[in-house]
C-alpha cells in the first residue's frame, strides 16, 4: 500500500475509483454547461495542453479510461494526462462556480432550488444514459431516485470545493483516496 504522506510528493497514477470520479465530475460540468464539450477543448487550449490533447478525440480517449464508460479503454492513464484533466476540471469549475453556488445555496427559495436540481439531474441523466454502461452498479446508483440525488449533491459540492487554482491539489488528493 502506498504511503499516504508522500502520495502527492511523487507522481502517482489515479486509482480506478479516482478515474471514475474525475470523469463523473467532468460529466457534471457538461451537464451544467450546455456547450461543455466545446468549453473543455477551449479550456485545454487556454491552459496550454495542446500537445497532450491536440483535438477533442484525444481528450475523449483519455476520458474513456473511466471503467464506467460504455466504450472503456484498458490500461493505466499517464500521470501527466490525469494532472491535465484535473486542471481542466478545476478551471471549468471556477467558470461555472456561480451556477454551482446557486445549486448549493440554502438561501435560495426552495421551489427554485428544486427546479434547478431537477434540471441538472435530467441533463446529467441524459449524458449518463448516452455514455456510461448502465449495467454497472455505480451508474445504476446515480440514476436511482433515492440514492441519485445525494450522489449528485456530493459531486456538485466537490466541484465547488475544487474550483480555481487552490482546489487543484485538494481535488487531486481526494482522487487518490484508497478504496474504503
Amino acid at each position, binding site marked *: 500500500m502506498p504511503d*499516504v*504522506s508522500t*502520495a*502527492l510528493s511523487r507522481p502517482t497514477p489515479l486509482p480506478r475509483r479516482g478515474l471514475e470520479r474525475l470523469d463523473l465530475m467532468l460529466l457534471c460540468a457538461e451537464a451544467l454547461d450546455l456547450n461543455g464539450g466545446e468549453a473543455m477543448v477551449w479550456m485545454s487550449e487556454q491552459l496550454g495542453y495542446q500537445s497532450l490533447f491536440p483535438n477533442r478525440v484525444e481528450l475523449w480517449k483519455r476520458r474513456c479510461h473511466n471503467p464506467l464508460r460504455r466504450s472503456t479503454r484498458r490500461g493505466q492513464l499517464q500521470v501527466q494526462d490525469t494532472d491535465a484533466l484535473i486542471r481542466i476540471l478545476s478551471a471549468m469549475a471556477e467558470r461555472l*462556480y*456561480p451556477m*454551482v*453556488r*446557486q445549486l*448549493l*445555496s*440554502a*438561501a435560495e427559495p426552495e421551489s427554485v432550488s428544486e427546479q434547478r436540481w431537477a434540471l441538472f439531474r435530467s441533463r446529467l441523466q441524459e449524458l449518463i444514459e448516452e455514455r456510461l454502461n448502465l449495467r454497472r452498479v455505480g451508474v445504476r446508483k446515480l440514476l436511482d431516485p433515492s440514492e441519485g440525488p445525494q450522489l449528485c449533491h*456530493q459531486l456538485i*459540492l*466537490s466541484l*465547488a*470545493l*475544487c*474550483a*480555481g*487554482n*487552490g*482546489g487543484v*491539489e*485538494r*481535488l*487531486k*488528493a*481526494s482522487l*487518490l*483516496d*484508497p*478504496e*474504503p
Partner: protein
Amino acid sequence: MIKLSHRYEQISCRLTVEGFPDVSSGQGSQAIGILTGWSLALAGHTELEGKRDHLEALLQVVAPYARHLISGAPRAFGDPVSPVAVHPDGSRHRLELRSSQPNTPPMALHLDDAELADLVRCLDQLLLDPRLQLNLQAPTPQPLRRSELRKRVPLGRRIAAPLCGMAALGLAGAVSWMVPIPKPGSFNPTEGKGTSSVAAPGNSSSSGKSAVQEKTPTPGKTAPPGKTAAPGPAEAPAPAPQAQTSQGTGTRPGSSPTPR
C-alpha cells in the same frame, strides 16, 4: 509607511488583510510581510477580526475540513479549547470561534455549503496571493486513510460480510457436530479379510450390519496407528459372531443364498 490592505471576495464572504511590507527582508512595497490585522465578513453574520494566530487557526481547521468534505467524509476539526473549530451540523457546517478575551462566550456560525465554499475559496486566494509573504502554515492536502473513509460506507453494509461469514462458520460447525463420531474399537481392519473366507451362507444374521461393513476398506491401507496392517493368525482377535456374517448378502438366517 503606508498600511497595505488586500481584499479577497466571494459572493457571501469578504476577507481583508492589513499589514506592512517587511523591508528588512527585502520585500517589495506592495507585499505584506507583517500582518497587523484581518477581518472576515460573512453575509448575514457578525464581522470577525483577529490577529495572525487567529488567521492561522482558521486555516488549520477550514482547509482540512474542506479536504474531508470533498471526499464525502466530513468530520470535526478543532478541539474545545482551540480558537476556531468546525464540524458538520446536519446539512450545514458549524464554525465556532472563541475569543482570547476572558468572559467572552464562543460564537457559532451556521454556514450552508455555498457559504463554506465561498470561505474556502477566499482562503485559497489568500494562500496563493504572491503579494502576501506571511509564510502562513496551512496543511497540505493529502489522500485520506482507509479508516477515515470507512465511515462513508453504511454500517449495515460494513458488517454484512463478517456476519455472513460467522453465520456460515456456525452452521458448518453445527452440521459437523451432528455427525456421529465412531466409537473407539468398533472398527477392525481384519474383519473384511477374515469374513470373506469364513462366511457361511447360513450364518448371516443382520442385513443392516453387513451393509455397514461392506464398506470396510482393505486392511493394508487403513490400519489404525499402532497396529500392524496385516496381523498374523495368532495376533488376530477372534471374529465376533456377527462379524463372520458381515460379508453376507443380507440373506435371512437359515436361508440359502441365491446363486448368481
